[in-house]
């Protein structure tokens, strides 16, 4: 399937850039030659990556990058320019972070195709860290036919029980996919999914034990996250759902609208709920696979 990359450069240079991108298999380019044009295209076209020049007729590539980070923060961007980093005005764009590729390098256009392909394939510019077994973890997650498994009622019951047990505003079970967290059950809120870098679970899943954040206002990992603020989240505790082959595929979590602590016993209990949710998922999957084998026989 072809993946679309937005290329932005001046009229006299844009075709060389789009050709470099399209030299890569599976990549197709759409083009823009101004900041305004680029922002319009970002709003109307689904793109998986962006290549932009720095100097544009109506502004700079930094304005384009700012728009990308605002609309789809996980989309990778390559700044492809012959302007040196020291000459680029980043004063108003201090935390955008992109890959810089010097257009003056002898093999710059060949590199550009490789690099944009690479950053797309590896989700290389996301604002969260992934576990070192991320590829295997995603493969493990794919083994579950989530859409087909009759888990909804069981999981709803579990999150109801968790919310009552901990006396919290929200309890949920979420699976952590490559780019987002999908909520399978949620008591106290109506959430379907959240961009992964906006979630607390993508941090929690990296910890072996339960991650507790007593007040996100005191934690720089989360206190500038508008999504969390909009959802009214103040405190958090999350326990890992670990598959039988050892990969963390999801989280069982409790949230509250006020600051709170969790005792060692409460943390242990949350882990027990997470283990129970994982068991249900594995049992339902096993039953489905056995039925499928029986039907084939």
């Amino acid at each position, binding site marked *: 399937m072809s993946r679309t990359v937005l290329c932005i450069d001046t009229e006299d240079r844009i075709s060389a850039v789009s050709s470099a991108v399209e030299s890569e298999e599976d990549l197709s380019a759409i083009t823009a030659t101004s900041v305004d044009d680029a922002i319009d295209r970002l709003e109307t076209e689904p793109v998986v990556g962006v290549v932009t020049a720095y100097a544009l007729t109506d502004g700079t590539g930094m304005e384009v990058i700012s728009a990308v980070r605002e609309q789809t923060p996980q989309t990778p961007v390559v700044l492809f320019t012959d302007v040196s980093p020291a000459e680029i005005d*980043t004063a108003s764009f201090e935390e955008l972070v*992109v890959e*810089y590729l010097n257009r003056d390098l002898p093999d710059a256009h060949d590199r550009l195709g490789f690099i944009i392909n690479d950053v797309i394939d590896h989700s290389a*510019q996301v604002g969260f860290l992934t576990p070192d077994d991320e590829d295997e973890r995603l493969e493990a997650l794919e083994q579950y036919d989530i859409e087909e498994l009759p888990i909804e009622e069981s999981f709803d019951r579990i999150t109801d029980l968790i919310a009552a047990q901990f006396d919290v505003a929200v309890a949920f079970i979420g699976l952590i996919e490559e780019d987002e967290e999908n909520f399978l059950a949620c008591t106290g809120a109506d959430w379907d999914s959240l961009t992964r870098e906006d979630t607390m679970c993508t941090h929690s899943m990296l910890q072996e034990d339960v991650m507790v954040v007593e007040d996100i206002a005191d934690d720089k990992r989360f206190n500038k996250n508008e999504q969390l603020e909009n959802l009214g989240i103040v405190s958090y505790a999350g326990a890992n759902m670990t598959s039988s082959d050892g990969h963390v595929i999801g989280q069982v979590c409790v949230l509250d609208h006020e600051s709170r602590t969790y005792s060692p016993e409460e943390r242990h209990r949350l882990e027990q709920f997470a283990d129970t949710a994982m068991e249900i998922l594995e049992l339902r999957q096993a039953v489905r696979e056995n039925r499928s084998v029986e039907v084939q026989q």
Partner: protein
Amino acid sequence: MSLSTDQFGVSSLPIDEIENGTSVLLTGEDTETLKTVFARLVAADEDERSIVLATNSGGRSVRRLLDDARAGAGSRSSILTAEGPGRDDDVTAIEDIGDLTQVGMQFSSLVASSQQSTARFRSGIFLCSTIASEVEDTRSVYRFLNTNFLTEIRRGDGIGVVAIDASADLGTDVDSMIAGMERSFNARIDVDKTGYNEATLDISGIPGHEGTVDISL
């Protein structure tokens, strides 16, 4: 000389070699001890180049540190420093360590330039905790590490070391943050100063060298 083309030899530490592509999280609470171990890991051998982002040391100081770790390593380094002036082509000054867009571009540019002459590299950040304390949103630090540091190690012929002062006030739960970073990096070395000129390393993720080992500083 390196022991083999896929490995990076380490001088003055009881680690024979580190595999190409390895990212190392280096943690500890004594900055000077951390700095010494960092230099021993990052100092370039003759067929390599070091690319160092130094948040709290000037270019001359970093070169001296690398030279102490391995003879001549200082002259095989490109340094991006937030302390003191740029000196020549190999020491570039950055004004604001919190401007990760600028820092990231400069760092990527240094890696690309060094690879024009020498493919093998050792990159290092000393101290990532200083960066984390300067930025407003920690997601930017992760984006910087992914975009401008871990990606270069994954693509190129190199290793990378990120040092964190675990005693620093980062405006977050430092233990939780380090636990998360540890899962994302290939290896971790925790440095504990045990006496004058002595330290213990707790090593994980470097095959053949798991566990604790005492070193002289």
